[in-house]
């Protein structure tokens, strides 16, 4: 197994590449046997038990949440130079099974992934023929396909799997299968593990450990872009490419081989016109234009503070000037039904404001939301944001039952502590501090001779 570090242009080590990460115990059915020989004065009695168990793992379908990301994104972009790839957070996924039907242990020095990314495009099919689509079938339809179609070989169901389970499948013409499916020698290069730093990422993603597995495609997308004329006056139309993550479990004997001149052949039995594969994930993207990450980010309109646009409020009467000021301060006019049922429009703004507001210490304690409603007599409008914030806080607290209870307990505890301290203080003022209390009582009940019982 080998590991490599890559340093990107901003000079912090960001990412490490590892060859593979096969699981310690691959998915499948196991049984745990325990045997003990009990010997007593010449008699030997064997005891034992068998505990069957199954290690479950994705096989014919993959839950969408197992996929962390895909590239190219399901979007438009100039992806003509990119090999597609898919990223998982499950570190062992591509090596959990093998391309042989029955599980054989991965060679630790040359692990072969059981999944591959296939890219299909329009020019794979003659005009007028149907482009295959991803279809939902039962596992039975995958393992025992109709005549003329080749499926995976030698797969036995494991615990928890039935022939009636649904999975996604695709039928690929035999000739195309030979052309685009990776050869057995290619497969080990098409999956690896990456370890990256999680700094600066979404808070949610911090639950992950920074290990990602990547399965890489072997085929570049179809594009109409001409590299010799990168900026044509008339932009060509986009080209749609379909990428499928397929399971190659049970395809070891059918994978193509490539002759030294580059001609691929696959040992598909005669009479089989197509190959049926389980599709674990699929997406489409379009090769078009120049909007990749850098150009998209550079095109962002970044010169804005939060707030409504004021460009239409150009008049100079008092009302317009006032409204323009309010919008610049981040306010929006919203419909407001007052407590008395009156309908009006009031100013509101959220906690995200376009100007720095100093922290006040302390904030005035307000007893209820209406107390925070502010009224501007010059134009007869309310500013309701603080009242809304107070009411929202109440609703959020009441919505969270454990918080509301904890608050109640906290309140009671403080009130009790204060009452206890007040009682103690009353006693102290009568008899002196508590460590002298014993003496006071002793004196009260008649001199040093009394027992303290």
């Amino acid at each position: 197994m080998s590991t490599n570090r890559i340093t990107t242009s901003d000079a912090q080590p960001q990412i490490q590449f590892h060859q593979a990460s096969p699981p310690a115990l691959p998915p499948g059915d196991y049984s745990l046997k325990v045997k003990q020989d009990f010997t007593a004065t010449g008699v030997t009695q064997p005891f034992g038990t068998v505990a069957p168990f199954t290690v479950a793992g994705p096989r014919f379908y993959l839950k969408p949440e197992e996929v962390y990301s895909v590239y190219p994104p399901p979007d438009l972009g100039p992806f003509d130079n990119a090999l597609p790839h898919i990223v998982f957070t499950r570190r062992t996924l591509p090596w959990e099974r093998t391309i042989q039907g029955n599980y054989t242990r991965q060679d630790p020095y040359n692990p072969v992934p059981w999944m591959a990314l296939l890219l299909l495009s329009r020019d794979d099919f003659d005009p007028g023929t149907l482009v295959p689509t991803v279809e939902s079938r039962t596992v039975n339809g995958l393992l025992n396909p109709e005549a003329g179609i080749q499926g995976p070989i030698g797969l036995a169901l494991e615990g928890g799997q039935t022939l009636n389970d649904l999975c996604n499948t695709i039928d690929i013409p035999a000739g195309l299968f030979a052309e685009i499916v990776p050869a057995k020698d290619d497969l080990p290069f098409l999956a690896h593990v990456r370890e990256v730093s999680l700094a600066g990422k979404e808070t949610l993603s911090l639950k992950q450990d920074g290990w990602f597995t990547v399965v890489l495609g072997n085929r570049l997308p179809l594009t109409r872009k001409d590299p010799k004329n990168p900026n044509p006056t008339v932009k060509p139309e986009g080209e749609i490419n379909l990428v499928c993550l397929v399971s190659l479990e049970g395809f070891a004997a059918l994978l193509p081989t490539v002759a030294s001149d580059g001609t691929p052949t696959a040992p598909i039995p005669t009479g089989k016109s197509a190959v049926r594969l389980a599709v674990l994930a699929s997406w489409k993207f379009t090769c078009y234009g120049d909007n990749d990450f850098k150009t998209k980010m550079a095109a962002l309109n970044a010169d804005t503070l939060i707030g409504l646009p004021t460009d239409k409020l150009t008049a100079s009467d008092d009302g317009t000037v006032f409204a323009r000021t309010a919008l610049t301060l981040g306010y929006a006019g919203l419909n407001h039904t007052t407590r008395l049922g009156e309908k009006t429009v009031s100013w509101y703004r959220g906690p995200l404001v376009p100007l720095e507001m100093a922290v006040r210490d302390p904030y005035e304690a307000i007893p209820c939301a209406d107390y925070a409603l502010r009224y501007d007599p010059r134009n007869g409008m309310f500013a309701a944001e603080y009242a809304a914030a107070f009411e929202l806080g109440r609703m959020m607290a009441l919505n969270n039952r454990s918080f509301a209870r904890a608050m109640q307990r906290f309140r009671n505890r403080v009130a009790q502590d204060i009452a206890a301290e007040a009682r103690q203080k009353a006693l102290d003022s009568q008899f002196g501090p508590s460590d002298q209390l014993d003496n006071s009582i002793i004196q009260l009940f008649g001199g040093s001779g009394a027992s303290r019982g």
Partner: protein
Amino acid sequence: MDKDWTKLTDTVSYDPPDEIKRFLARSVLLYGVPFQYLVPDERMLIPESVHFFFLDPGWIAMMVQGATSVGRLDAQDTVLDTTMRHRALEKAMVDAALVRGNGKDIGEPQATAAKWPLTGFLLRSSVVDGWQGVEMKAYDKDGVEVAPLRIDRLAPDILLCIFNGKVMHMTVKQPPEGLHFGLSPLGNGKYQRLSLRKVTAKSGGSVEPGQQIPNSGAPIDAPMRKGKSRPTRVVRVAELASLFQQRLKSLGQDAPDFTSGEFGVEMVESPGLVDFKPPQG
């Protein structure tokens, strides 16, 4: 608030229990606040734009007051109630820095207490949707990195980021776990790799592992599978890997174990990095 009850007592603890502190600290970072309360009018958030903001501590103080007002027995505010609520607010405003967790382990600057004013931005772009795991880094006026307190997606294409202090400059980076692999297209189904990266630390020299080797020779033509009527655009991966290995050897950078890890390093494209400056004024 002219009387502070804490001055009247010696032993009573006004420190709220952890459960309350946690909820309030999260509220300060606007967890649980419905989107309409954050952005009351959708015209405030035009597509493909970054909107910078300051957090309004007054708004948050009112929300925390509202949250801590539950369970009162009468609406008449007592000095005790005021004291408790103030203590809870003070705590929450400081503890907000701890919600994201300890940043030190992952190389982020560590925030121990919130440094108001907190600032941040809302990013609405197809970049958020298309590139899972974009990385944000923010810097203050002295160029010191500011700790992120919250980075979350509110919608598939809307990202909310809150930083611990006033941000003067920030960078957004393409996620390295999603760094893509590529070959330079020459047209007519031909592709090539223009330069190689160093993959071994053993061979010495001034180039760091992972960096591009200067003068790595002529571009390497990618061996492709032959198609019947059209270019297949299918790379002969094992062949290409062995071409990389031979070239590295001829450059004195021999890598005897050339696996998917080394292949990945050679095929990966550099990540995109974009700078932003909030409008100053």
